[in-house]
């Protein structure tokens, strides 16, 4: 084999570039990954809340080198006639061109659009749109969750969902008041006005999340499962499995794709791994919220 013959003559870095598959295989056979992790371990994860002061809520999530920044902006909009008692939640994932060598400025890439669709569907089941209503038939909140991928080093779905979830759980909807002529005021002015007169509107409040979904990606490589694959590993995988579970263990989303079929045993193994990872990540989120002086509402029934 050419790879084996060359192995004796080239240094590790060259070997890695020329024969990425052999390089990864040699690690995996030893039960390790190129970055030193065991096969089933996710990368170190961190959650930073409130990084962007112009956003109503924001969260910076790092999973290893993969970085996602979610920012939430809220606007008061007229209620839609077809859904007078509901607000709107809009989710958008943007793969900023600086995040990887294949991303380019301009139209969103396919990967970004897929992520947008998946996360949009997930989050709309987490946030009940009816609680975004301000005055039925008249005004409602439009909540825009924009997620920027800043560094695409694999398992983007996990990082993007966590960033969006962290931002939403730290979100406080401002106080809002609406007078008879339809003028809308938000923030401290609205709070004062509400106390003075009996106006339609609402006090400042935290968003209630119906559950805390956590996504966890595993890759299938030569019959073994690699948790939380990096961008280097992803193209070599035979299949990639992403499972989204909430705190009760219910499966909210599951996707498997790749060149190989995924057996039932693998599915079970992935779900088990996702359950463990979810517990770990939710504890991290809880801690980040406590540090920011907020408690997650979703834990309460």
């Amino acid at each position, binding site marked *: 084999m050419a790879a084996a013959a060359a192995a004796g003559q080239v240094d590790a870095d060259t070997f890695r570039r020329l024969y990425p598959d052999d390089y990864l295989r040699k690690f995996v056979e030893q039960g390790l990954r190129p970055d030193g992790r065991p096969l089933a371990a996710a990368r170190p994860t961190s959650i930073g809340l409130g990084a*962007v002061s112009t*956003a109503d809520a924001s969260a910076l999530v790092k999973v290893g*080198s993969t970085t996602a*920044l979610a920012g939430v902006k809220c606007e008061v909009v007229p209620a839609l006639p077809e859904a007078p008692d509901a607000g709107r939640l809009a989710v958008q994932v943007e793969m900023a*061109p600086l*995040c990887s060598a294949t991303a380019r400025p301009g139209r969103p890439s396919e990967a970004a659009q897929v992520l947008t669709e998946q996360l949009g569907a997930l989050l709309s089941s987490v946030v009940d749109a009816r609680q975004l209503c301000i005055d039925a038939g008249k005004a409602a909140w439009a909540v825009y969750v924009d997620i920027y991928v*800043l*560094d695409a080093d694999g398992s983007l779905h996990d990082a993007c969902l966590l960033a969006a979830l962290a931002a939403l759980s730290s979100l406080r909807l401002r106080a809002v008041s609406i007078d008879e002529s339809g003028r809308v005021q938000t*923030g401290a002015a609205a709070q004062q006005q509400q106390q003075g007169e009996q106006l339609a509107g609402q006090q400042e409040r935290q968003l209630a999340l119906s559950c805390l979904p956590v996504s966890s990606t595993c890759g299938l490589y030569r019959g073994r499962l690699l948790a939380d694959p990096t961008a280097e590993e992803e193209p070599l995988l035979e299949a990639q499995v992403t499972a989204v579970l909430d705190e009760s263990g219910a499966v909210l989303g599951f996707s498997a794709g790749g060149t190989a079929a995924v057996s039932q045993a693998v599915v079970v193994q992935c779900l088990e791994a996702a359950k463990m990872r979810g517990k770990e990540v939710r504890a991290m989120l809880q801690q980040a919220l406590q540090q920011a002086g907020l408690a997650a509402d979703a834990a309460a029934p």
Partner: protein
Amino acid sequence: MAGLEQQPLLTDGHRRDGRAYEEFRNVFLNTGVISQASGSAYAEFNNTKVMVGVYGPRQSERKVGYSEQGRISVDVKLATFATRQRGVFGQTPEERELSALLATALEAATNLASFPKATADVYVLVLEAGGAELAVAATAAALALADAGIEMFDLVTACSVSRAEGALLLDPTTDEAAREEAGLTLALMPACSEVTQLVSRGPWSSSQLREALELAMGGCAQLDALARQVLKTAAAEAATRRQQEAQRQAQQA
């Protein structure tokens, strides 16, 4: 909040955020922040936060045509939540202008002949716009180019000066820039004191302009010292890592 607009920007020698007129905000610079990029940098001047990734030099896109020299292609985007009013996803004319200005600020400092026919892509994302975005982006982009190992004649540092309420303010915030009578942004190659970009807004008398330029040049020199320190620290860390790696390999052998 409405009252704040009428209040003066300056009270007995200090600005709203407590700074003196010729003082920078808290500056934080860092390189090597994006694992996938050839070079990258992050710059934070209090509420102005900018991330830059450099890819290449790599093959030019077909649509730009042939060029004997190397090319720098700049794309600046503001995150939708970077401004008080929510922005849009597509590129606005302001962002296009910022991109063009940034490209000229960097081209003069880069040795374009060192990568003929290829393009270095400089992607800038403004995470939060708190004032002086062009200057912060130019400083960060030059650091990212250096981090990518692209040959440069000198680093580029840039800073803004606003004239408001009769005083010259270094490194203005959004509030200060919104109420300036005149302003300028200067990009400088500090070692050789050569200007790569000067953008001026509003009316200046020649004596005022001279004074403002001196202030900006002083600011650029301050940033230069910091930027060089950041590059040196990064290089020292990389050298230590390489040494450790070599030692480990020697031990294994």
